[in-house]
Every structure is written in structure tokens, then in C-alpha cells.
């Protein structure tokens, strides 16, 4: 799987390259500025891009803007955005086109290599990977809403993991329950929120995120 990586801090870039190579990814390019990233995304056609929000030369949200522009030019281009802080505002912009294949994670998440690699693979396959912090912020804002308030604690847990983009199998493994139990919880959640049931994991996640982000 070919990866374009954009990160301006040498240590982090180097560490990510080593980690990705250790998990058999092919690094198509590892760049450090916005313009370089734009060029790499256009020319190298990677399977997934891992992008730091803040990049030189402007040190504003250049990485995010490059990623959004590239996704506009090539809809569905898988992009995993990393940041030192997470903002719902950015998450909303990334999810806006509703095509999936996006991830938005805190840089801290690279500490846990297995989970991080799992997130990269998920995004590359057209799924989503939202940072738990984003989901918690969304949920706490909606906690007072009736449908969200009516979820049982377990259903809430499942919903949090589902909104992060995890598959039923991954959720089952994390919560140490069977996949069938997770499937039951998910159908309960969808019924309580009044959402149509999707068989497709990815569309299911997007529906939940859209629900949480509404209003």
C-alpha cells in the first residue's frame, strides 16, 4: 500500500516512516511543506495520505486545506489527518462531502502502533477513523437530547466506538463480547435514533456521525 506522508517535524516524520515500513507500507513520499504535499498527491496517486494539519510555509492549517483540495480533485482520496489538537470544526469539514475515506486523529494516537495502523488501513479502505476526543465532544453536546439520553451505558460505549469508525468485529474485541451482541446493540441504537439500518459498515458510521453533528 503506497502512502504519502506530510509532517514538518523531522523526528515525528522519521518515526512514522519507520513504523509504516515496519508494517509493510510503501512510502511513496515523505514531505514537509504544503506545496510539496499538493504536488505529491497529484503526481503519485497514493492509496492513502497521512497529513499534519499545520504545515510550513504558512504554519496555518495548510495541510488540512491541501488535503481538502486534493479530495475535491479526486473524490474519495483516502486522507488521514493528524493534529496536535482536535477541533469539531475541522472534523465537520473533512466529513462534509460524505464520501468516507477520511480520518482525523490526535498525534498521540501514534503511541499505540497497532491501533494507529488499523486506523490507516481503515481509511485506505474507504472507512473512517475519528479521534475518540471528537466523538466524546459530540456526544457530550448531545447528551441532553432525548434519543442519545435514552441509550444504555453499553449502547453508548458501542456508539462511541462505532462513531470512531470501528467495525463490529473490532468493537466486539475491544469490549470483550461476541459480534452478535454488538450487532444487537447497534440495531438498538439505530432504532432509538430513528436512523435507517445500513448493512455497509462505512455508511453506518457516516450516518451516526451526521446524526451527532446535526444542529
Amino acid at each position: 500500500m503506497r502512502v504519502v506522508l506530510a509532517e514538518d517535524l523531522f523526528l515525528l516524520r522519521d518515526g512514522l516512516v519507520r513504523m509504516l515500513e515496519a508494517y509493510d507500507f510503501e512510502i511513496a513520499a515523505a514531505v514537509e511543506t504544503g506545496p510539496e504535499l499538493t504536488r505529491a498527491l497529484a503526481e503519485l496517486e497514493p492509496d492513502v495520505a497521512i497529513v499534519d494539519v499545520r504545515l510550513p510555509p504558512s504554519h496555518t492549517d495548510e495541510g488540512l486545506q491541501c488535503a481538502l483540495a486534493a479530495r475535491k480533485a479526486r473524490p474519495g482520496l483516502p486522507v488521514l489527518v493528524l493534529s496536535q489538537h482536535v477541533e469539531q470544526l475541522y472534523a465537520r469539514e473533512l466529513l462534509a462531502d460524505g464520501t468516507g475515506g477520511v480520518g482525523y486523529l490526535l498525534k498521540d494516537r501514534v503511541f499505540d502502533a497497532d491501533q494507529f495502523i488499523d486506523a490507516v488501513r481503515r481509511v485506505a479502505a474507504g472507512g473512517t477513523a475519528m479521534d475518540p476526543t471528537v466523538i466524546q465532544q459530540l456526544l457530550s453536546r448531545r447528551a441532553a437530547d432525548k434519543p442519545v439520553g435514552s441509550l444504555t451505558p453499553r449502547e453508548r460505549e458501542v456508539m462511541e466506538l462505532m462513531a470512531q469508525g470501528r467495525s463490529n468485529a473490532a468493537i466486539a474485541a475491544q469490549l470483550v463480547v461476541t459480534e452478535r451482541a454488538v450487532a444487537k446493540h447497534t440495531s438498538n441504537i439505530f432504532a432509538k435514533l430513528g436512523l435507517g439500518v445500513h448493512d455497509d459498515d462505512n455508511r453506518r458510521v457516516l450516518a451516526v456521525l451526521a446524526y451527532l453533528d446535526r444542529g
Partner: protein
Amino acid sequence: MNATRARDALQAGAQGLALALLGWTASIVLFVLSVVSIALIPIGVGVFTTPAVLTLVRAHADRRRLFAAEWADLHIPVPYRPHPRDLRTGITGQVERCTLMLKDGATWRDLKWLLVDMTAGAATAILAPGLLVEGVYGIALAAGLWTAVYDSADGAWWYDFIPVQGWRTAFLAGLLGLFWIVLGLYVNRALVTAHFRLTRSMLAPDSRVKLAQRVDRLTETRHDAVDTSAAELRRIERDLHDGAQARLVAMGMNLGTIEALIEKDPDQAKKMLATARESSAEALTELRDLVRGIHPPVLAERGLGDAVRALALRLPIATEVDVEMTGGRVGAPVESAAYFAVSEVLTNAVKHSGADRIWVDMHHSAGMLRVSVTDNGSGGATAGGGSGLSGIERRLGTFDGVLAVSSPAGGPTMVTMEIPCELS
């Protein structure tokens, strides 16, 4: 049109009469009292009477400033220097107060104004009702009043420059009276305005006073700014010391232990590694929160509008943000001050207002950034005292920004901030 003109001229006449009467009574009395009181300072009595009399003079002048604003839409700034807050009580305090007032240039300008007001000022003002009264009198003469006042033995009855001694001259007097009234219709408003212009030239602070006021204000705001930033640095130091720094120390210790254990007891070492990773994550979280408190990353990345939008998304209350800032970003210091001001106001609203909706409106026009935060809560917020709002006011003061609060009991609360700045 004519009716309004007539009403306006009549009103100006009444105002002129009031102004003239004030000039001839209050101004004269206060001037005499002031002079006597100041003259009595050497024998001691004056020290006690002067501040009281001068306070009355200031009240008199302030009343005139109010009239100027209400009647002629002329704004006359108040030049008096504020008394220091730590003025002593008793006799020493009284002496200090007296000295301060006498040292204030505005006091002497007030006294000069009293002199001008009782003469030129009153004279200008009395012309307005005078024209109307004189005109009515002329017409009354023509209508027959002349027969009552004219006595052929005493010679002609003079109306202005017309010797009235028969119907023909009385008719002329009537014409002149009509002329006065028409003139009054056109110039009365101007006469009252002229009176206030004269007042303003005497009472408004001259450039030296303005400069002194500016220096006072700058000294005060600089003081506040230094205090605030010192307090901020102390807070950051404490947060780092108790938070991230302590966690890194603990992590270092853990790693040392792990090094020693790794061969003897690998299981224990593994457990401790997990703890070490956890504390590094916690340190990062703390640093992230700290950074957000110093300068929010989204502010650096996106500017004020989006930073406030991002902030609104994190509030538990539905918040609508409306931003109109075309043509660039405001300078970084103002941006940061405005952000934290809005953030503080929003925090207040969430904590105290009981509102379920908040509206933030930001726009930049004519060199001024205006931000208003409105909530539909229970109201009753005040800017003064030790409230959070007075802290914001102080911080905005560094940028010559101001804050106003409108919060009647029962709501809604609207906090408005204005900061002069340019977009770049």
C-alpha cells in the same frame, strides 16, 4: 415645514431664555462664591469650602454639557482628572482634595467659562427669545397698543429706531416686528447652537489636557496589561510545574525502574511501561490544554472567526456565530485579546445566564472590530466590581477597546465589545 420651523424657533427661544437665566443667576453666584472661597484659603476656611463650591461649579458645567448634547447635539468632553482612589479621610484628605482640584487646569477653565457665560454666553442666548418678544411687541404696537403708550406731550414712543407717533409709524413698527419674528424663525436655532459652541470652546479640554488624559489612560492600561501578563505567566509556570513537568519526572523515574527490571522481571517491566505511556499521554493532554489557554491553535491556524466558531462548537449551549470580516485578519495581539474576551463572556453566559441559546455577532467596519454576545437567559449581569466582565474590560483597555453590558433583570443579556484595529 413652516409649523415645524415655528415650533423649533419657539423651543429655541425657550431654551435661550433658560440658558440666559442660568448664566445670570447660577454662573454669577458660583463665580462669586468660588472667588471668595479661594480668597479664604490662606485663613483656612477656604480649604473646606473650595472643594464643595468647585464641585457645584462642575455640576453646573456638567448640566450645561448635558444641555449641549440634548439641545444642540454638541458633545463637550469632560476634562476633570479623577481623584485617586486612596484619598485619605479627615482634614488631610480635605487639603489633598482642595490641592488636587486647584492643580487641575480644568478648574481654572471652568471659572473663566463662568465669566464668559454670564456675559457673552447669556447675551447670545437671550437674543433668541428677545427677537420673538420684540417682534410680538412691534406687532402689538401696530395693532393699537401705541395709542395706550403714546403721549404727545412726551414726544415720540421709540420702538427700536422708529419714533411711533401715529398709525403710519405704528404700522412701520409692526412691519419691523414682523421682520424680527421672521428673523427669529431663521436664526433662533443658530443662536442657541452658537451659545453652545462658545461653551464648548471654553469647557472642552484643550490639547494639553487631552494629552494629559491620554497619558493617564495609557499609564492605567499599561499597568493593567503588565499585571495581567505577569499573572498569566505565573499561572502558566504553576500549571507546567504541577502538571507536565511533574509527570515527566515520574515518567523518567518509571523508565529507570523499568531499565533495572527488564531482565529480572519482564512482566512487571511491561506493566510499568504501560503506566509510563499513560503518563506521557496525560502530560500531552495537559500541555494541549495549556497551549489552548495561551494561544488556541485554531486561532493561529484560522483566525478569529473560525476560532470562535470552533469554540462555539465546544459549548453545551446551542450557539450561533455570525462573522463578517472581509479583507483579512486582525493583528495577532488584538485577535488574541478579542478571542479570550469572547471566550470569557461565553463562559459566563454558560455558567450564570441559564440561557438555552447564544448568538455571537462579529464584524469589522470603519477601523473598528465589533463583537456582540447575546443570550436569552435571565439577565442581571453587571460589568463593575470584581466580576469577570471587569477583567475583560481591563484587558481590552490595553487596545483602547471598550465593553458595554445590557442585562436587565429577566434578560436578555447583551455584551458588546469594540476594539479599534485594522485588517491586514
